[in-house]
């Protein structure tokens, strides 16, 4: 069974040969390939090579084009701080929509002409061509709330929910259109699944999530499904109070980060929801021992049940000992999904 078949089996509710393993690797993968992260995020060929090398070296079941949250924002004209060997970051003080009126002046974006978005699309094509028969290929878009935070400035957005609800809906309508266009292109390029990263949603409570965030996430999920794609929802952080909403989106896969007990995630999202996670990437996966990692995964499996994919709650940090990631993969490869 290939990694791709293994993941597809779990998503179909069938029994794979063993549990799939899908930890997010970004800077870790760049290090495995001995490239600077700036090269990784700017050249899809370097990213694809690093992803394939990492998947092969550790036995991961997938490859991904997730790299940083600034691809869409950069192509829209936002100010980005570039670093030689770490992910680029939005400069919030110069946020594109710091002035709310700037939203109304925006022109529609051509997703394949934008430099950084096109690079991801080309990355998906290359990964599909080089590894797609064996490994599950993941695309990535920023969710409506996360992209809204990138463009408006996260501090401003958090207060906009109260100060100017109408603007928030206009903003999320704009970011939704970006995400829909970008995800459509990625599905056409061959992505098996689209990761929707909406981390900013973990900062709001259930009221704001249901009123402002969920409806726009739902439209994105429905659009991806309409395009024939699958969705991996990734809201890292403490999502305890919005789990029911996350489970109601209809995503094929929902990532759970370490602050959320897997048991709670299972009870809130239902038995049929495939959950991914949720090892603490720093305290357990990086700082722990292989033995402790195996014990932690045993406990996670008991709580998560059958519809579960092994992963860390968020990105595998770059200085994670290789034997620790190997211990995570070994657990997956030596365990069948719970009955």
């Amino acid at each position, binding site marked *: 069974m290939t990694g791709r078949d293994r993941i597809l089996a779990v998503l179909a509710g069938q029994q794979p040969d063993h549990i799939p393993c899908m930890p997010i690797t970004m800077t870790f993968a760049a290090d495995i390939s001995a490239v600077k992260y700036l090269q990784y995020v700017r050249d899809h060929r370097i990213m694809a090579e690093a992803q394939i090398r990492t998947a092969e070296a550790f036995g991961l079941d997938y490859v991904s084009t997730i790299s940083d949250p600034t691809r869409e924002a950069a192509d829209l004209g936002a100010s980005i701080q570039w670093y030689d060997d*770490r992910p680029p*970051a939005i400069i919030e003080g110069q946020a594109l929509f710091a002035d709310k009126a700037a939203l109304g002046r925006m022109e529609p974006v051509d997703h394949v002409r934008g430099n950084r978005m096109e690079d991801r699309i080309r990355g998906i094509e290359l990964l599909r061509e080089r590894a797609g028969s064996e490994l599950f290929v993941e695309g990535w878009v920023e969710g409506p709330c996360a992209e809204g935070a990138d463009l408006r400035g996260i501090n401003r957005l958090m207060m906009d929910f*109260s100060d100017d609800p109408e603007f928030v809906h206009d903003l999320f309508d704009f970011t939704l259109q970006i995400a829909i266009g970008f995800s459509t292109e990625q599905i056409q390029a061959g992505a098996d699944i689209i990761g929707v990263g909406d981390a900013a949603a973990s*900062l709001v409570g259930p009221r704001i999530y249901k009123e402002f965030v969920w409806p726009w996430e739902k439209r994105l999920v429905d659009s991806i499904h309409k395009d024939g794609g699958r969705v991996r929802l990734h809201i890292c952080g403490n999502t305890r109070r919005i789990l029911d909403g996350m489970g109601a989106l209809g995503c094929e896969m929902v990532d759970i980060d370490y602050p959320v007990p897997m048991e709670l995630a299972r009870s809130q999202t239902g038995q049929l929801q495939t959950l991914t996670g949720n090892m603490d990437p720093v305290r357990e996966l990086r700082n722990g021992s292989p033995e402790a990692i195996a014990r932690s995964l045993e406990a996670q499996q008991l709580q998560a049940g059958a519809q579960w994919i092994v992963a860390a709650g968020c990105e595998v940090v770059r200085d994670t000992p290789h034997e620790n990631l190997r211990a995570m993969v070994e657990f997956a490869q030596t365990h069948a999904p719970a009955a």
Partner: protein
Amino acid sequence: MTKSVELYDAILNGDAKKAHAATQAAIEAGVEPLTLISESMVPAMDEVGRLFEEEEYFVPELLLAGRAMKSSMELLRPLMTASGEKLSAKVVIGTVKGDQHDIGKNIVASMLEGSGFDVIDLGVDVSAEAFVAAIKEQNPQFVCLSALLTVTMPAMKTTIDALSNAGLRPRVKVLIGGAPVTGQYAKEIGADGYSENASGAVVLVRSLLAEA
């Protein structure tokens, strides 16, 4: 009665305009700024912190409460400067070099300011040299370092080392925080304390002050 219920409620509800008006009314009624801070502002921010811990409040509510508190402080600061009144301790805070994330740092800064401390916020991407300069200039009792990324955490150690090299380390307590930061890491790099959230940071500063 010196407590302004209106100010307390305005901060708790994140209403900056009402907080400003309530502060103005209290000043006109003759309430001393430090009394207003200790009787209304600090209890309100304590309650905000409690509600956050209980997962009744979330980041938007914290930021709104912080903004309401600042609108009150805008009126109180000039009065305190004029009368020579001082807050209980001074804190310099910033996100370390290479890190652009500031929402966690902003919440900690607000909670500390609303808890009656004089907070100097240096912003994001703050170099070790800038921390050193600010500490020389401001002479704080505490310096708080924030990092959201594992790749920027080493800048915390760089900053602490720079404080030591400048001979400033004995003068300030260094506290660190941020999602990937741990108590173990704080010990490894020679920080004086670590907190996993804003309420904990307030408790930590208060407890270290009590020990001093």
